[in-house]
């Protein structure tokens, strides 16, 4: 399907020049708006869209409606703040600490020693899985991870979250302050064997899916063969030329980010009601966040959750809603429409 993506432009002395385009998530919002008779335009040069329904004007930027406050954004964007607020509300977060640039080597090691291994280290305000280190078990690799994370940003509020690695399945829950819109099970990049094709061929085939591309203009991203993939295969004594058995699932990475070729499977209808309750409580705890994506891990999503069975990893203010609209497997959810209902509650009466 070819889409007419909106172009972002900036003004130069010789006129307006395109430098970027909308993502699929944003494009879905604009297309959904048009369906409801809402007109839209970008305020030139700002990346902020002005939408007009009847005589009401509202705005969004990225996938954040203008009802989301700065405080809501701050609480989600700075992961140390998110952790703290969730913890205060008796929601489970992994045990962990916030390491800052000024901490001494001794401070840093004390954090590592106080936690159960393996641990995860990630910048306190990163996104898209950038510079996230998982499965850290030794001090040397831990200190390397801290260096990389601390180097990635110079904001005074920024440091590194170091926390225990929770064992369970990864989910992304899209929610508002009173409703769960969709739940996606995120799987690391993988292929399923057919007994005849090599892993390399299976990857090539999987990448032919029109829902996959190299950019955020699709909801799924191409699987790239890199050293992480080869390493992951090597751990199972596989190579790219191995021919997996019929129906054998071969994982190609450890992380389940969609941005590195992972799969999204809608599981909204099988989640236990307690999962939805927790998600709504998270959204109500992060004051002023009206629409968000919760990274949720649990041992079993179909069972009643207890404090030890699940963990909230982070909350995203701009939640890549396309994964719910166009999942790899399972039902599509009206994530764009729900966004517009937040922007224009007036639509409910029409």
């Amino acid at each position: 399907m070819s889409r007419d993506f909106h172009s972002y432009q900036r003004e130069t002395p010789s006129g307006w020049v395109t430098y970027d385009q909308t993502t699929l998530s944003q494009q879905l919002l604009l297309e959904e708006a048009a369906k409801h008779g809402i007109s839209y335009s970008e305020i030139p040069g700002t990346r902020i869209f002005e939408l007009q329904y009847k005589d009401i004007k509202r705005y969004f930027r990225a996938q954040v409606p203008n009802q989301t406050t700065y405080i809501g954004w701050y609480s989600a964007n700075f992961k140390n703040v998110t952790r703290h607020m969730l913890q205060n509300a008796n929601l489970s977060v992994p045990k962990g600490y916030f390491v800052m640039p000024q901490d001494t080597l001794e401070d840093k090691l004390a954090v590592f020693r106080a936690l159960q291994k393996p641990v995860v280290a990630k910048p306190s305000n990163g996104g898209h899985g950038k510079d996230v280190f998982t499965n850290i078990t030794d001090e040397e690799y831990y200190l390397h991870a801290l260096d990389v994370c601390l180097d990635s940003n110079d904001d005074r509020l920024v440091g590194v979250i170091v926390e225990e690695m929770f064992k369970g399945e990864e989910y992304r829950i899209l929610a508002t302050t009173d409703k769960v819109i969709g739940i996606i099970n995120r799987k690391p990049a993988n292929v399923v064997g057919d007994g005849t094709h090599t892993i390399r061929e299976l990857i090539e085939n999987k990448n032919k899916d029109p829902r996959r591309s190299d950019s955020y203009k699709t909801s799924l991203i191409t699987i790239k063969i890199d050293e992480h993939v080869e390493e992951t295969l090597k751990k199972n004594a596989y190579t790219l030329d191995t021919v997996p058995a019929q129906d054998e699932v071969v994982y190609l990475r450890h992380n389940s980010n969609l941005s590195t070729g992972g799969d999204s499977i809608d599981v909204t209808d099988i989640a236990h009601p307690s999962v939805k309750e927790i998600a709504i409580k998270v959204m109500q705890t992060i004051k002023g966040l009206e629409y968000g994506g919760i990274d949720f891990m649990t041992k079993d999503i179909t069972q009643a959750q207890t404090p030890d069975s699940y963990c909230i990893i982070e909350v995203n203010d701009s939640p890549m809603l396309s994964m719910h609209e166009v999942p790899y497997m399972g039902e599509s959810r009206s994530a764009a429409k729900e966004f517009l209902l937040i922007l224009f509650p007036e639509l409910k009466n029409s």
Partner: protein
Amino acid sequence: MVTLNPNFYYVRPKIDGTEEKKEVVSFSTQLVLVEAEKLGITWELIPETEMYKLNWNGEIGYFLDRTPLASSFSAVSTCMDKHITKLFLAKSGVSTPKGYSITKTDTPEYIEKVFNALQKPVVVKPTNASHGDGITIGLEKFEDIMPAVEKAFGARHYHNATVEIEEMFVGKEYRITVTRDKIIGVMHRIPANVTGDGIKTISQLVEEKNQHPFRNIFGDSEYQVYGKIKLDDEAKELLAEQSLTTDSIPEKGQQIFLKKVSNMMAGGDTIDLTDEIHPTVKELALKAINAIPGLAIAGIDFMTKDLFSPQTPETYSVVEVNHNAEFGIHHFPMVGKERNATFDFLQLLFPELESKS
């Protein structure tokens, strides 16, 4: 009870049970807390954040630093990018300095093209820094642009950082603190200066001026509402340009500037002019905040050739809109009437609040 205090720090609990001081709570924030207590509002700082939770007879309000819960993310992200702010202002018909934003990947040839398209002198500044970090003003020659651009990018290391090159508006500087429907205060901001008496040297005048109680609210602390004037290299250079030294004796009534930028922490002065502005200034300030949807309160940097006459598109320019307003200058003007800006701020959290002063 909270009292104004130079040792009121944001802290971070450390793993060994100790607390580490992060940075001092801004004077404006402290003033808000003092005013809140006066009105019977209790407050708590949410640990490990700069976020405050306030409770007024069971009603809950929040603010972060000096931004109320009511300010939206898109509004604040607009203010955090000075170029995008100008695009919003321009759309509403508010005059702004003509300029272009450049990215790290732009070539020197492109930057030269930008420079040539602008009237000189120009200003180079990071689009997202505050307190004048990384800003260079009064640039006339292209050879001075690249170092200024580097300095501006250096102030912020973000991969997607941008720098604004804009025409420098020549006029006086004012800070207008405003909500969407009300002017809280209009402050004339003046760079550090002394006025001669025909007897004392510049050094002596500076020393005398530094005795002002507003420059010593916190005793010897470096941290004050108004910084002390320092006769540093910048000041000496500026004096040399006027063929003066620190030992020169200015004539009676002669005003000598010691800084180029009107920064209060660098010894600047303020004069409250809220009641004297021309009505068109008020209209423009309200138009400026309303140009940014979802912004509940702002500190507008307004420049004009004459604050007391009707403004026309050429006589004024809105240079910046700050989402984190400053209250200290309105509570402690060097000259003129004091304004209870923190009350107006708290009223954004609790609209039913009534003034006790």
